[in-house]
């Protein structure tokens, strides 16, 4: 009973401290909103509106028909038509266009004679990712064009080749925003929770109030709980808010169960609170606390599979990601949002999180008392 009262007193004090500190207030509200929209809109792997130029030496109905297909594609944006080969290098060097289509003068004639015609596609390879994706799109367009173009030898009906029909499960239109925004709540609340938790003890140490807490009849566990609750509450609120926003604002489907979402987020946030408090109990000043949390956040995000797949990392690094709590919540959130996962489906993501949470919280509590300057 007394324990509960003390925890409540500490929790009220922590909430007041956050509410009365303009900097803490901003940390809770400002960055999450900015990051949510920035990530949601900007962080996409889809290639759209690739600027291209055309050097059509043929000017036949066939070449015009081919170019019309490019013109009608969402993926490309026509910039200009060229009259001379020597215009090409400058265009690409200055990044005015990323791609040049060159249709040779015998294109129409070759098609009419049933000879396989060739066209040249020049791409700017400096951004290899965009180049290869754009090239892929271009190949698709050319392939579709040649499949549909009426053959010259009308009598000899050439049967179309066996066609491959793609069906992408869980994300039928390959929208990378689905992939990003479904995990966004987890990633962004990491920053909030980490900063709140890492500042909480460091602030008290810097202003000398921590000694006063240690001398009062609080047990380390009570301090731990009292310090965890505010960061936990704000973190969970942000994560849920952003998850809702992902559905309502970015039209991400939510197929899974709400209870699974609540549970995985809760346990994940506890793990981050533990790490934040651990950083905080090591730090003697708020500056050290902040630096410490940023040093932790960067590798967490990069090694989480949030943007780059863990499967493509070297083996030793893949083992290292097993220690990263963000890895589990990213995977879990995608399962819940896109794969209609219920609680049993994500349990293998939850138990490692629970393990990490319990160990980081224990270490943090121990350090409260044993780290003394």
């Amino acid at each position, binding site marked *: 009973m007394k324990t509960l009262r*003390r925890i409540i007193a500490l929790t009220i004090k922590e909430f007041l*401290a956050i509410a009365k500190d303009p900097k803490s207030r901003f940390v809770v509200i400002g960055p999450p909103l900015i990051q949510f929209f920035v990530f949601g809109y900007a962080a996409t792997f889809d290639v759209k509106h690739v600027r291209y130029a055309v050097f059509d030496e043929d000017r036949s109905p066939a070449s015009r028909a081919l170019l019309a297909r490019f013109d009608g594609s969402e993926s490309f944006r026509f910039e200009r038509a060229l009259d001379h080969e020597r215009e090409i290098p400058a265009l690409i060097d200055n990044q005015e266009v990323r791609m040049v289509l060159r249709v040779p003068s015998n294109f129409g004639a070759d098609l009419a004679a049933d000879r396989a015609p060739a066209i040249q596609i020049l791409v700017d390879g400096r951004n290899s990712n965009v180049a290869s994706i754009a090239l892929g799109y271009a190949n698709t367009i050319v392939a579709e064009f040649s499949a549909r173009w009426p053959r010259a030898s009308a009598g000899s009906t050439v049967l179309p080749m066996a066609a491959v029909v793609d069906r992408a499960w869980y994300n039928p239109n390959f929208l990378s925003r689905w992939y990003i925004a479904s995990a966004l709540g987890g990633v962004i609340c990491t920053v909030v929770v980490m900063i709140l938790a890492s500042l909480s003890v460091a602030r008290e140490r810097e202003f*000398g109030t921590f000694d006063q*807490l240690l*001398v009062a*009849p*609080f047990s380390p566990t009570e301090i731990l709980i009292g310090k965890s609750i505010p960061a936990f509450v704000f973190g969970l609120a942000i994560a849920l808010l952003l998850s809702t926003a992902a559905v309502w604002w970015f039209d991400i489907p939510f197929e899974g169960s709400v209870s699974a979402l609540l549970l995985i987020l809760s346990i994940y946030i506890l793990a981050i609170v533990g790490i934040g408090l651990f950083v905080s109990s090591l730090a003697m000043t708020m500056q050290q606390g902040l630096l410490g949390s940023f040093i932790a956040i960067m590798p967490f995000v990069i090694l989480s599979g949030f943007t780059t797949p863990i499967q493509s990392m070297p083996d030793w690094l893949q083992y290292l990601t097993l220690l990263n709590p963000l890895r589990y919540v990213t995977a879990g959130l995608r399962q819940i949002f896109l794969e209609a996962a219920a609680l049993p489906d994500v349990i293998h993501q939850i138990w490692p999180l629970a393990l990490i949470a319990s160990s980081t919280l224990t270490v943090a509590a121990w350090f409260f008392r044993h780290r003394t300057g």
Partner: protein
Amino acid sequence: MSVTAALDDRRHASVPIRGTDVAKRFSERGKAVVDALRGISLEVGRGEVVGLVGPDGAGKTTLIRCIAGLLRPSAGTISVLGLDAVRDTLAVRSRIGYMPQKFGLYQDLTVQENLDLYADLQGVPVAERPARYARLMKMTNLAPFTRRLAGRLSGGMKQKLGLSCALIKSPELLLLDEPTVGVDPVSRRELWQIVGELVSQDQIGVLVSTAYLDEAERCDRVLVMFDGQVVDRGSPVSFRERLVGHVDQVHCDDQRIARRIHSRACDLSLVADATIRSGRVRIVRATADAAARRTLADTFGVALEPAAPTFEDAFMHMADARRASNEDPGHHPVVGGSASHPVDAGRVVVRVRDLLKRFGDFEAVSGVSFDVCAGEVFGLLGPNGAGKSTTFRMLCGLLAVSGGEVRVAGHDLRKTSARARARLGYMAQQFSLYSQLSVQENLDFFGRAYGLTGRRLRDRVRWAFEHFGLGQRRNAPAGTLPGGYKQRLAMAAAMLHEPDLLFLDEPTSGVDPLARREFWQRINDFAEGGVTVIVTTHFMEEAEYCDRMLIMAHGRPLALGTPAEIRALARDDVHADPSIEDAFVALAEGRARPIDVTAASGDHA
């Protein structure tokens, strides 16, 4: 130009400081306008030491910074060595020595490197340096330590090095801003000797601000400042003479009786100031008339004998007169209200044996043993860096011991459950409450932390408001309180749950003489109520308010005993009536034989 004007000019040039109607107003946007200086005129001549005395916030530092050319006065003129302090700032600075409260020593450089750096900055010719260094090192006794890092020096040595750096270019005027705060008595005396030497040999002018009122006696003239104004000035002798007939003392054999008389005297309106010095209660009456004297003698039922007034008496008399006219209710604390604890005298509450603390290979504390009995006021005394705070933090369980034994009410606070700490009150050296939370929110939090709820919590918070005069500021954020009120709030928070044992770490550090008196009066009240108090301080005269004390230096115990026992150590032909400070100096210089601390503590075990 006439002859008289030329003469006038030369006389002007020879005056180190001449300030006329100097005013300084701080008006930051969004903050209240503060008039730090309100028309101050002063003059400091060659070969003269002028002291600036006054409570915190009186404007002492602002005045010194204006003279050093670091602040631009809002009105008035300041001429320094015949130059205008505002227009010729650079020329002024090259001819004066200025030592701020915290001198900018580079902690990671050696003593010699610090000297070289300041010599370079001041442009001292290389050829002149060896002779200059030799003289400064001889004056300050720092010669054996030139290769030591400045960060490793003791507090007193750091101040002496700071002074050496300020003196590197043979200044014609020396500005010292509270140069002796937190410095041990031996180093304080040395610092004043250095200043005295400089004045007599080089005929420089010195302006020094100080929080130690006894130091004012060493000045040629004293300016007393209150609220940005010089309210009085004169030689220390002239201040003392005014108080002849105001001061009495009471001989008490029993320390407790002395404290009781002192405590009651503080509450009487006809008493301007009461202190305990060398075991006697000193009483400064507001008026010199004999009737008041008789009233006092009747009230206490003791004989009063006249005592020689000091500058401190005069200052406190002035402060009391101002207080009476300003009617600041907070300064006279309401006595009582704190529930009295049953005192089980003689029961050992705190037991310390062979305490040892190592940081790396540095022994911060070693060989400390003592007992504190229930209801005692026990003092840990010593200069900064003596190991008091380290010892203190080990007592509270904030720091692990490297060896030895610490028991507080039978517990090792570092290992025991939280419940054992519920009977303790703790007040840290620096203000350690939540600055953003209001006074009321802070009190509520600490009350709840110690298990107070509902009606009981409300009663105790109301008690704190009344007893500490905090009621009117209950909604102010704690961080915005003036210094003295912060200290009151911290103490209120520590006393809210009526602890049996109160730990106070340097509660009077950085507090002006007025607030310090108020503070000890409160501690006294709590002790009367049966609370055991353990308190650290570097003000030696405050030891008189303790029942027993341990004096420490360099992490080792020097002496343990009652104030009378400690003073007796220094009694010799020269010092017939030594103070605690005399005793400390005698112990530190090896003239007095320390009391065998282990044997002394064994009496209580």
